[in-house]
């Protein structure tokens, strides 16, 4: 009797796929965790300028984003407007809104609050300076001029 049965037709064993759903589910959970749904729809057109010396804003929970640009819908005019969350924000309301935003944060994080300004490249500096002054009044001193990363050409 031979130990090796030659010639015996042996079927290829089927691959056990019962663990495949678990595998996929773990990837799924990973993506579910890192996903944050876009909670705001941009009502203004923002095309941020390019810069080479940008730094990443590390902690998302500390960052408040303000959008500045021309409104998409022409019925709001053609002047540059400020958008915060889902609404347009008048320049006079920047201070109360920002103060409110700060108060909604955890107490330890409040001094670390950072405001990221996503400003369209065609905006006039008058609007930006006005916004900066209001942010100073609201004690939001850590700001960031949002820009796209660009490789520096001449070194």
């Amino acid at each position: 009797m031979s130990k090796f049965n030659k010639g015996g037709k042996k079927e290829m064993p089927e691959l056990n796929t019962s663990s495949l759903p678990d595998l996929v589910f773990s990837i799924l959970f990973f993506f579910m965790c890192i996903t944050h749904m876009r909670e705001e729809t941009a009502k203004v057109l923002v095309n941020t300028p390019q810069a080479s010396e940008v730094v990443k804003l590390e902690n998302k929970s500390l960052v408040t984003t303000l959008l500045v640009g021309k409104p998409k819908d022409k019925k709001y005019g053609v002047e540059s407007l400020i958008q915060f969350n889902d609404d347009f924000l008048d320049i006079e309301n920047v201070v109360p809104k920002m103060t409110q935003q700060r108060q909604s944060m955890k107490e330890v994080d409040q001094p670390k609050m950072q405001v990221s300004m996503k400003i369209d490249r065609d905006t006039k500096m008058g609007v930006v300076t006005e916004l900066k002054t209001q942010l100073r009044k609201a004690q939001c001193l850590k700001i960031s001029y949002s820009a796209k990363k660009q490789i520096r050409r001449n070194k």
Partner: protein
Amino acid sequence: MARKKRKAPSINSSSSADLAFTLLIFFLVVTSMDTDEGLTRLLPRWTEEQTNQDIKKRNILNVLVNANNDLMIGDDFGKVEDLCEKAKNFIKAEGEFAGDRGPEYIQANPEKYPELVQYFGADTKTPKNHVISLQSDYGTSYEMYIKVQNELVAAYNQLREELSQSKFGKPYDEEELSKEQMQAIKDYYPMNISEANAKY
């Protein structure tokens, strides 16, 4: 009658993988991995009255951008491409100060003060009192403004990089240098950019 013991039929789970895949693809699509990037700045505190600080003229480099996006560096027209180099020369302040050699020479040399910076010894002189005053006009475009800001930040970054290489032999990077070393370099070349209000 003898009853047969029946096993409960197992649920066919071959489709659960498909189900999970569908969900996975959905989350893949809606996930935005992009992190916000930008030029970070610390604004000065708001005070009701304008504070007038007396700063010696030689310690200030004026950078002006007007409504036509023309650039003025010091006392003359300038190009954005030259701004980085000019700012670097200004901050380095390596030339000897000679008050009678004309305004452009004065402007190019901020004073150096003895400053106790860690790793650099007690008699180190740093240009800690220099100020780059960036003024923009009401009508300046934001794109131009960011370009100018970017050049100024680049000047600081390059100077700090050079200093880090010559002093520690490592690139100016949080992963390479210790916290104290980073701070020492920041103390040596502090970033003093004053963003004055737009002029009306």
